[in-house]
């Protein structure tokens, strides 16, 4: 089977085509031991210190939406990519590609929002870059952030460490970010005050790690949603996963919006949610610690990992049925009727 000859939008959706692009193009060119695990951030050594290092580019239309803006997302996304490896973020960079004509006042609001998010995460933005392109050659503003952080000695969080019987904890209500952006982008007028969840999760992760040594791996749930993250983890650790639909936190407003638009909340993007994989004996302690944190109030145990010949991610539905959750195929598009 031959892939597409040109880049399609679906290559950026976080689903299967994104994965193929990374493996067949980028990994092929850049392959090295730090890159190969393809986790949220790479681990590199400097002197005797283990550093987590990551980068991400942000492209969102509109740049401001209920609950957050492109700047907040750009800071939180990179902080979270570091934090899920257990790293304590040390410093961030910020690069801006600006389109000619972009309003100065809007840029000032975005940078103020970045400053606020960085302060909340306790990490400075220490270097940056600016490019301006002609009108029509970019869509307002694109932001790239990179970050480094120090991984505490002895801590190794990786999907490969997940064991049969481990529980899956989700840190809160899913799908709010994707629905909030879609609502703002298309002026859908959905009510219910659905807001982006963009948030730095390093504090929440610190609390979870302090509560117990039983944390095996943490993933931030972004593009492609929980279903895609679980498929990646399942692939990395060679185990199946089973979720209980009823225990997965989704707000009533977001659930209704997804039903209306024909979207599956398990595939919708988040910017302030994580999935944590923990030894069963440690789960309650970790859950309690997470629920005490403001970004983990709705945390819940949503399922567990188990040994299986052909590992897959299964969902036990509310009415007692069951189905397989695959990786996101292409973009999630709203339906016709």
């Amino acid at each position: 089977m031959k892939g597409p000859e040109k880049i399609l939008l679906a290559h950026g959706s976080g689903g299967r085509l994104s994965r193929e692009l990374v493996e067949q193009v980028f990994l092929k060119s850049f392959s090295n031991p730090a890159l190969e695990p393809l986790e949220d951030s790479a681990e590199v050594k400097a002197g005797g210190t283990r550093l987590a290092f990551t980068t991400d580019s942000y492209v969102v239309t509109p740049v401001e939406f209920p609950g957050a803006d492109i700047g907040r997302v750009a800071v939180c996304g990179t902080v979270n990519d570091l934090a899920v490896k257990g790293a304590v973020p040390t410093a961030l960079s910020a690069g801006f590609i600006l389109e000619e004509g972009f309003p100065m006042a809007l840029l000032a609001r975005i940078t103020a929002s970045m400053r606020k998010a960085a302060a909340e995460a306790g990490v400075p933005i220490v270097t940056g870059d600016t490019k301006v392109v002609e009108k029509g050659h970019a869509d307002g503003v694109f932001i790239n952030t990179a970050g480094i952080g120090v991984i505490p000695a002895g801590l190794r969080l990786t999907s490969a460490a997940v064991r049969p019987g481990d529980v899956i904890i989700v840190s809160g209500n899913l799908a709010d970010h994707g629905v909030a952006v879609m609502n703002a982008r298309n002026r859908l007028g959905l009510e219910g005050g659905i807001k982006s969840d963009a948030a730095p999760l390093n504090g929440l992760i610190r609390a979870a790690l302090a509560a117990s040594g039983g944390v095996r791996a943490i993933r931030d749930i972004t593009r492609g949603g929980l279903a895609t993250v679980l498929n990646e983890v399942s692939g990395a650790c060679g185990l199946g996963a089973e979720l209980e639909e009823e225990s997965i936190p989704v707000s009533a407003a977001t659930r209704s919006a997804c039903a209306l638009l024909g979207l599956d909340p398990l595939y919708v993007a988040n910017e302030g949610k994580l999935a944590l994989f923990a030894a069963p004996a440690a789960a309650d302690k970790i859950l309690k610690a997470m629920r005490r944190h403001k970004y983990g109030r709705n945390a819940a145990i949503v399922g567990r990992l188990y040994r299986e010949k052909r590992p897959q991610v299964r969902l036990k539905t509310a009415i007692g049925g069951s189905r397989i959750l695959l990786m996101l195929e292409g973009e999630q598009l709203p339906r016709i009727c």
Partner: protein
Amino acid sequence: MKSAERFSSPLWRDRSMAASALAEMEQLCSAAAERTGGRINIMEVCGTHTMAIAASGMRRLFPKELRMLSGPGCPVCVTSQGDIDLVLALAAVPGIIIATFGDMLKVKGSNGLDLNALRAEGADVRVVYSPLDAVELAASEASREVVFIGVGFETTAPVVAAALARAKKRGLKNFSVTAFFKLVPPALDLLLSDPTNRISGFMLPGHVSAIIGLAPYRFVAEKYKVPCAVTGFEPLDILTGINMLLKQIVAGKPEVQDEYFRAVPEGGNPAAVKLMGEVFVTSDASWRAIGTLKKSGMALSPAYASFDAVKRFKLKRSDAPEPRGCLCGKILLGKALPPDCPMFGKACTPSSAVGPCMVSSEGACAAWFKYGN
């Protein structure tokens, strides 16, 4: 959002209510099977039902005598290859902006290309959530031609009618649509007129019925003696709808029942029907795998003929063949299930779809694939 919550409250997914509905279904189904002497084939006509059934994982909870068949009710799936080719030809006209629902982006033309591929080549294709957005787009891009791709059934047609009425009122000369709309009742008539059909009952589409009401389906129960239940889209709606059909089979009294009465009044939505009557006229329509079916579609009425994109850009429809080896046609007619197709899950997956039933998010093949039934 309050009103939306009324339609999808957690009550409609309640496990104990589902369990009792399933227990009742077990009994009804064996009684029905005894009466009919075999398997019970219920056709869900609407793609949204196909997806809802798959998403709730209920198929494996059904009694063994019960089989759900997907019918010709997925807007993308029933659009003929010739019409798809017209859409792609429109996208290739320089300067045109195509405004479409997202579902159409991945349907392949007979040349193997889809709108996504044309977009990567430079075609201007925009996903809209409502045809009214396409009208606004035309108003703001006065120097460009905006074509809205109209496909679907009695559900989407009224909104497109509203968009056309608005465009006409505002005197927009750069807005046009493809009117590839289909009507559900003639498709049911065609299915039932085939003496080899195996349909024991129809789960009728809630959305379409909210527009046209119950009367257009009466012939199914009266002429063909096949039970009907207009059904909603939550898991308990579907279980209740199936039980309504089974009860009709057991009693031997086919009729048109309304499980989805919280959304579907018996008379439908007269204002929407009136608007459709102004903008569209009943016409012959070309269905995938079925061919041209008399009086089964909606074309633009004379008052709106100038908004016809196919005429405006002088395009000719060709009779393009279906993709080779693709079973979409049989699947749409309830004569095959997706796994019966040799390409299913192998040459044909959602990211390398051969036939429209795999392309559309509401297609039977996509539902079977995505939810791993």
